[in-house]
């Protein structure tokens, strides 16, 4: 019975994503049509005369009314057509697909690292107010919020690459000495493990360490802050007091009663955290020359390659929607309150 209620909720949530995706498509469409000056003149190039601009306008369908242009735009998208990246001459879809694993590996790795540090830290800080853990938590939260990601990255580079010599130079995903592993997941660390190549795994991990830490430091702050606040709130609640009064073990009160309930607000804030991470990802990729879609977009921006930038914005937005969906579905599945009222 409870599964029925839950799966219904999951389905409703999936349906709610439809208008969001539609809104994203509209905004991206407006952005493609908001090019400075005349898009047709832009795509025709500098040397084009009046007639060839007109020709390009017709080819691109820019002489049609806007709603029809929008339908064509969505139709092209459904076929995976995002236009051609001027800087490389390949289609934007190919370029993005080639670079997406690198970005995903970095982003998801950083999220995982941040979660494994921030959640225990927040819990410890909440259970021991004003202890050194609490102060450490507060320090990390303040630093994470005030430090620009690109600055943290450069500072880490200076200390661990230039001064200590522990980290490899910031030159992408893998040292020149190594060949990338056979692509299965596209994540070098996992692929090298599948291939059983320890040296390769260590090399790719070494390259990823600093960008990962930079991004995780930034991500950690909001998660730790939220965990601490949520834990403080649940620890002060009536049901925790009742559980304590009933003589349950400290461990049981903390984990089964307080922590499980405190997790819910933490998961809801993850949506905002994703938004920050995907943005900060661009900056970190630029600092460490990480060959992901972020640095691709930055390069495209420099040479005014609009199709590439717009493809990037669209794919980031879709990725964000997907991550949010995943979170909301998880939330529905673990929420102990859902299903009891049926």
């Amino acid at each position: 019975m409870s599964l029925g209620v839950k799966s219904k909720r999951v389905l409703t949530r999936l349906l709610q994503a439809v208008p969001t995706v539609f809104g994203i498509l509209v905004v991206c469409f407006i952005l493609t049509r908001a090019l400075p000056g005349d898009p047709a003149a832009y795509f025709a190039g500098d040397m084009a005369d009046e007639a060839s601009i007109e020709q390009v306008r017709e080819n691109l369908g820019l002489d049609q009314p806007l709603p029809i242009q929008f339908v064509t735009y969505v139709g092209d998208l459904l076929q995976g057509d995002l236009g051609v990246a001027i800087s490389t001459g390949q289609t934007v879809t190919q370029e993005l697909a080639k670079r997406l694993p690198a970005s995903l590996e970095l982003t998801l790795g950083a999220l995982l690292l941040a979660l494994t540090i921030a959640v225990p830290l927040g819990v410890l800080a909440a259970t021991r107010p004003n202890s050194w853990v609490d102060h450490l938590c507060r320090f990390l939260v303040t630093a994470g919020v005030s430090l620009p990601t690109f600055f943290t990255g450069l500072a880490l580079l200076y200390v661990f690459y230039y001064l200590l010599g522990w980290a490899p130079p910031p030159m992408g995903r893998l040292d020149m000495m190594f060949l990338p592993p056979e692509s299965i997941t596209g994540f070098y660390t996992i692929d090298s493990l599948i291939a059983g190549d320890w040296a390769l795994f260590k090399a790719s991990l070494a390259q990823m360490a600093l960008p990962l830490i930079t991004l995780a430091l930034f991500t950690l702050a909001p998660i730790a802050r939220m965990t601490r606040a949520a834990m403080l709130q649940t620890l002060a609640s009536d049901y925790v007091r009742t559980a304590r009064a009933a003589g349950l073990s400290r461990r049981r009160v903390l984990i089964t009663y307080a922590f499980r309930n405190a997790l819910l607000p933490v998961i809801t804030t993850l949506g905002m955290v994703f938004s920050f991470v995907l943005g900060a990802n661009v900056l970190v990729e630029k600092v460490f020359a990480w060959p992901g879609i972020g640095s691709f977009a930055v390069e495209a921006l420099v040479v005014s390659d609009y199709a590439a930038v717009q493809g990037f914005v669209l794919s980031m937005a879709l990725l964000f929607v997907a991550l949010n969906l995943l979170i909301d579905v998880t939330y529905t599945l673990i929420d102990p309150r859902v299903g009891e009222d049926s």
Partner: protein
Amino acid sequence: MSNLAITPSTAPRAQTREGYWHHLRYIMAENPLTGISFGLFFGLIAVAIFGPYLVPFDPVATGVGPALQPPGVSHWFGTDHLGRDVFSRVVVATRLDLLISVSAVTLSFVFGSIIGCFAGYFGGWTDRISGRLMDTIMAFPLFVLAMGIVAAAGNSIENIVYATAIINLPFYARMARAEVSIRRNAGFVQAARLSGNSELRVLFGHIFPNTLPPMMVQISLNMGWAILNAAGLSFIGLGVQPPMPEWGILVAEGANFIISGEWWLVVFPGMALMLAVFTFNLIGDGLRDLVDPQRRT
């Protein structure tokens, strides 16, 4: 918030003001950081206004010293690869950075408040349409959306301001909407309506001023984020063009030298950036303690 409400006679007003100052002193004494942050804030403003007249060197003049000199007596923050004085550049950049973020936050405050007030007060379709619009903005990773807007609208400082304003709009609109809709039928609002005020007058003359305290907190917390955002955009080469000094660009220029050990090019503008963001965050927390004692953590 009752201490900010306008009361008819002068005696209770003086009393509430007394209470307000008392509360302010209490907050300051309890958390000295708030006092420090206000000091830093005025320091930043002073540097932004007077900095360009006080710096020892012309911030864009090349060759005022030997290239890539570490910090020393004549060049406090060292010099960059073109022999420009880093200290002068960092100080002069304050004005531009604050100007960008203040204009962006002002824009999103004004438009966000108007949208949120209408949505919260009239409800119905106004609410639904504006809500959808804000949801659509929030459906993007915000920094990425700002990149897209600047790329589409053209690479200029103005567009950085607009992009930052747009991505902050939902926060203000949602807050204004929530604050207005809980007061929509409050006693003082009905009284104002009964005495013949028009709907708009009730909304902007009577309800809106009550939303200001939480909005101020939001503004201050948002300022830090707007500064980071603008600096991030110029770090990746959008908006501010070299040789104009701006913290994000200064860090970006210094980034090429960090792997050869010239740390001062990155550290000083980075620290300035951090200090500014830190100041606004602290003020935000302090203001929150002041206007909303229940939400203290």
